[in-house]
């Protein structure tokens, strides 16, 4: 197994560290955890570089490692999920509430962040990291059909949540047409 050279490692880090960090940040909602996940991801990438099949694109391989490390991190951090949102209150009593009301982009982002981890995984890979559904399925380690239905279910949840505010989500790409 051939070791990775410093030049190769630096190039990979330069090209993908931001994407890995943003993936981890979105899923973990913590800049500190995201930094840790990024570091662990690239340690794994450098260590396992010899097992990577260079005939294939490298990014799904890197994202798969990042996703696995994120999941491992999150399963020890259930408190982040429980306490990611401030407690519900009937009255708007925080400064954000009083200044910011019915802002649609913020609302969509808020709803995306309320999705389950599985839904957020599929959404961030497909919509933000721009992976095709086939690549998304491979990174998630699930069949294409499951991936499609998971994405569809996430979009339906978003639409349902946002319907009351007349916010229509424009679904992305031709590859979704067959599932909608």
């Amino acid at each position, binding site marked *: 197994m051939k070791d990775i050279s410093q030049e190769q490692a630096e190039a990979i880090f330069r090209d993908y560290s931001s994407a890995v960090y943003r993936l981890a940040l979105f899923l973990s909602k913590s800049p500190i955890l*995201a930094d840790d996940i990024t*570091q662990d991801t690239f340690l794994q990438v450098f260590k396992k570089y010899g097992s990577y099949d260079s005939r294939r694109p490298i990014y799904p391989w890197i994202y798969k490692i990042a996703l696995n490390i994120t999941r491992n991190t999150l*399963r020890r951090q259930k408190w982040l*999920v429980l306490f990611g949102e401030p*407690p*519900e209150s009937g009255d708007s*009593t*925080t*400064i954000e509430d009083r200044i910011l009301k019915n802002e649609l982009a913020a609302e969509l982002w808020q709803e995306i962040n309320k999705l389950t981890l599985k839904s957020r995984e599929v959404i961030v890979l497909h919509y933000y990291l721009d992976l095709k559904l086939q690549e998304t399925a491979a990174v998630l380690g699930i069949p294409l059909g499951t991936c499609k239905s998971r994405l569809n279910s996430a979009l339906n949840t978003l639409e349902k949540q946002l319907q009351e505010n007349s*916010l229509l989500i424009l679904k992305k790409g031709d590859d979704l047409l067959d599932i909608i």
Partner: protein
Amino acid sequence: MTSFNMKIESVFKDNLDDAAPSLKFTTVWQQHQKTGKNRFSFKKMVAVPVAALVSLVVLLMVGFSFAAIKDKTDYPFVNDTSVIGLWESVDLLDQPGQFVPGKNHSEDPLFLKQLVFYKDGGMLMAVNKGNAKLSPTQYTWTKGMVLDKQAKTNSKYDIKEINGTTYMFFEWKCGDYTYFHMEPPYFVLKKVNDKDYSDYQMTAKSDKIDYPFVNDPQLLGSWKSVDFVPAIEEFKPGTKLTPGELFLTRFDIAENGKIGGMTSQKEIPDDLLTWTKGLIIEKKGKVASKYEIKEIDGDTYLFYEWKNGNYIYSGMQPDYYVLKKVK
């Protein structure tokens, strides 16, 4: 009725594109070289095959299925008067049988601090994070079980009297159980009281706000947000710890306690905030936030305590907006 088309990817871009790791390549590379030397250590040569074997056995046991476990959670509510009240964690164990009253097996502080079961299946929870207090949780209960409809888990609870004290053994089904099919550990909780917390009101923290005005010429002027940090000492000029657009973007601070400014969405109403030396006060919300002004590398920064719902309701430490003086 107005409709809006919004692309999900543009919302992602708006919120994530500015985020960058504070991590440097050299740090990772040095770490890689350090750990690389132990690659063929005896420990790893033994541990890896053993772990692989265990994984294989687990795979066989779960029928080659690593899908997340989804417990049945649609149980009807059955009352259990013995569970009503406040419970406090005393131990975390692999098995209830390991419990020895007075002995805590866990070296770390117990994550779960308190649980409240109130009538009709409602629950409150407090965890050991800052001074976090009881707050609503997605958990509900029915006789013998705690249900989490969001995470799709049902966790058994069992109540026992030991040496005159009432204990609960509560299955803790976190991600290890859901995703990795591991046996859940048990929190042991001691009953504190039998009170019904149905009418429990989260006590919103309110600060003293009636301070006399004291001038602070250093504060006057315009300030532009550059970061949002958990503690003042974590701010590093030139790097951004919090990605994306910051909610608070600008303060315009005038004489006699006047403050205007901008958020990423709207102008801050003129009558929302006032200031006096050392404090920025929001009278309506009864919140007084401390500020500090520091000179760092020739620039002047304002550190402003951001007391949002986490502070007001859950007692967590406030984070800080960092604003740079506009020259």
